[in-house]
């Protein structure tokens, strides 16, 4: 038997000192040889546990086998069959909680770098202009999709492949949702997002930008004009702490900070017109992916010192491991067990610091993490020039206020049945609009599931019509 290789092939990366000066991809990608070597470490388990953990059920074992054998095209087609955007998912999925988290190799050494292999194979296909061959047999039914994030993208792709006439309505001037405006280019290069989106257009999906459903298109009009509607509007509105000082200049929501940086490219100001102001000393409140992204953008946009301010410890942080690791490598400091109680300002109305209360860890709460408990009389102050609140986001009120007939839970998440239908029979929903803050891959999975449900619904409807 071949010797088992316990150590994974390391990913070459831009050095921290170099990369904090640019927005280029941090990982440099596997070479063909590196990818093969990594893939050959796979044990090819008879019962691949990794696949069971994949929200879109990629045939991971087969994909890795083909990579190991150097059959890159086959490997790509396997990935693409279940995931319309492998180059994206490979880069942003929380693999440690999914496929890689259960990889059998983890028992004896490093898990297989599945995400990196997925990204490799998608990049390879892009470079070599290898695409999926699709034969679309047009159907007459029309489906409207609201929101062009991962949920909308995957729903559109699947329905179009099935022959439906698909229109995708996006509020912003660029498609992609969080992939475009939220996740920074050093983690997810925008050319990749655009390339994967262009596949949609090539398939004949009609992408309509600047169409804000509820504002310049009504949802009722969509329900009348289309046979089915899918809502993938995400959870894009920022949450604020609601503490004193949020009106100060230099206080940002992470959304604003990231939209300026990523969508509007403020890091290329003044080539791009949109400015951003990043002080020398920056505090980012929160420790999820959004917080890490904001912190890493801030350091790239000229901040001298950046702190993650978190009320638990970094062990409990919800961000992907890789992001925390990269952030620390880039010099971002972790200020743990503190809770901001006020943003302090100077007489000109600019942020001057934070008042922080110390915390300790208590018993487990409903999230399974130890609850942060305030320590009495422990407040102290720290100077900052910029404060970014990254506390997660909530569903956008604009859409919901115009669709009051849709059933929602108390946190404004749209309620759906297991097949993702809402309380309206031809309206489906998925992704963050239904889950609150979740992940790219769960949104992708929802989009696919909704597409299957819509296909079933429209098929049944068509059959009923031929019978009667």
């Amino acid at each position: 038997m071949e010797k088992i290789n316990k150590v994974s092939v390391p990913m070459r990366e831009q050095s921290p000192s170099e990369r904090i000066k640019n927005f280029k991809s941090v990982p440099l990608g596997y070479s063909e040889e590196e990818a093969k070597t990594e893939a050959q470490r796979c044990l090819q388990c008879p019962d691949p546990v990794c696949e069971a953990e994949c929200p879109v059920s990629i045939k991971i074992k087969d994909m890795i086998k083909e990579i190991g054998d150097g059959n890159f095209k086959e490997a790509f087609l396997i990935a693409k069959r279940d995931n319309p955007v492998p180059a994206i998912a490979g880069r942003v999925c929380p693999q440690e909680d999914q496929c890689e988290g259960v990889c059998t190799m983890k028992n004896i050494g490093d898990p297989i770098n599945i995400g990196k292999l997925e990204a490799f194979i998608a990049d390879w296909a892009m470079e070599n202009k290898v695409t999926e061959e699709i034969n679309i047999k047009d159907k007459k039914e029309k489906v409207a999709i609201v929101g062009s994030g991962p949920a909308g993208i995957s729903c559109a792709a699947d329905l179009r492949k099935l022959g439906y006439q698909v229109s995708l309505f996006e509020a912003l001037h660029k498609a992609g949702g969080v992939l475009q405006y939220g996740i920074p280019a050093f983690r997810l290069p925008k050319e990749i997002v655009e390339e994967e989106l262009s596949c949609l257009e090539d398939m004949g999906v009609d992408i309509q930008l600047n169409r804000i459903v509820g504002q310049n298109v009504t949802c009722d009009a969509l329900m009348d004009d289309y046979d089915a509607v899918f809502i993938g509007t995400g959870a894009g509105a920022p949450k604020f702490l609601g503490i004193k000082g949020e009106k100060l200049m230099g206080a940002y929501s992470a959304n604003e900070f990231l939209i300026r940086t990523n969508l509007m490219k403020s890091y290329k100001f003044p080539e791009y017109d949109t400015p951003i102001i990043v002080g020398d000393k920056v505090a980012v409140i929160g420790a999820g992916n959004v917080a890490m992204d904001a912190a890493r953008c801030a350091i790239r946009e000229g901040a001298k010192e950046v702190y993650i301010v978190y009320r638990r410890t970094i062990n409990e942080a919800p961000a992907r491991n890789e992001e925390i690791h990269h952030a620390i490598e880039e010099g971002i400091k972790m200020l743990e067990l503190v809770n901001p109680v006020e943003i302090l300002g100077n007489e000109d109305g600019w942020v001057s610091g934070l008042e922080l209360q110390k915390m300790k860890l208590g018993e487990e709460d409903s999230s399974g993490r130890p609850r942060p408990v305030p320590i009495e009389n422990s407040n102290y102050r720290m100077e900052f020039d910029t404060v970014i609140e990254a506390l997660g986001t909530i569903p956008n009120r604009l859409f919901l206020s115009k669709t009051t007939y849709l059933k929602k839970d108390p946190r404004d998440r749209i309620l759906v049945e297991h097949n993702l239908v809402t309380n309206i029979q031809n309206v489906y929903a998925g992704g963050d609009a239904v889950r609150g803050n979740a992940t790219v891959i769960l949104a992708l999975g929802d989009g696919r599931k909704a597409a299957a449900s819509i296909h079933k619904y429209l098929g049944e409807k068509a059959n009923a019509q031929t019978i009667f």
Partner: protein
Amino acid sequence: MKHAITKKVDLNNGDYLMEVEAPNVAEKFQPGNFVILMTREKGERIPMSVQKAEDGKVSLFIKRLGKTSKELDRYKVGDSFFQVIGPLGIAPEMKKYGNVAFCSDLVCGHAENYAFCKGLSEIEGNNVISIQTFPSEGDIYPESELTEHLCDEFYLTTVDGSKGRKGHYLDIVKELLEERKIDYIFAGGDLSKLRDLGELTKPYLIPTIITVRQIMIDGTGMCGSCRVFVDGEMKLTCIDGPMFDVHKLNFEDILHRVGMYKGEECKAMTAFEKQ
């Protein structure tokens, strides 16, 4: 979609009018809505008031100030903008208000004044009073772009008194309030004057709704940069406004935040002028 510029007319030395093709916007526009304009792909998303929306086109009043507006000025009839997005914001209902006034003293306010006078005068039972203030005679817009032909009572003031009544719209409002019952006031323009207007109408308990200019990016409630505090509660100018009850606003906050990017604009201006 291309947004071709179909008309460009100087209003005075500083302000000009641009008419742009934007059928999606024009179809749905209501007085009180605004649009977001991007001149080019690398441009900012600039919120703008709309004066008119007709025949698939919208007319904007623009000030030659700041880098983006300077850059905007380079666009001529026949050129196209990258995006005109909207209509955005909540439009107040065009209904019977009775004695209703619109006051303005700056470009965006004048555009809104026009849109409101047109909307309000189409409704029976409204006595539409329009007050427009300009610094001096030379700054007054051409007659066709003023509101006189759209309203029942028209007042024009110049700050230096060179034409029309001397003073600001505030002076006229004060007179009117002492003279008779005014049912409703709308206003747009200089924020500090809007604050003064609020002080003026408060003792009379007259509902006073003003347009708030705040820093915006998406205009759809996603970034939170346009937040203002209304009765202490955080609201977003783009989706809860842009028109708010002046008596509930905290002006100090608004005036502060609006100036946040002044320094950056100067930098951009220098870079732009070097080009």
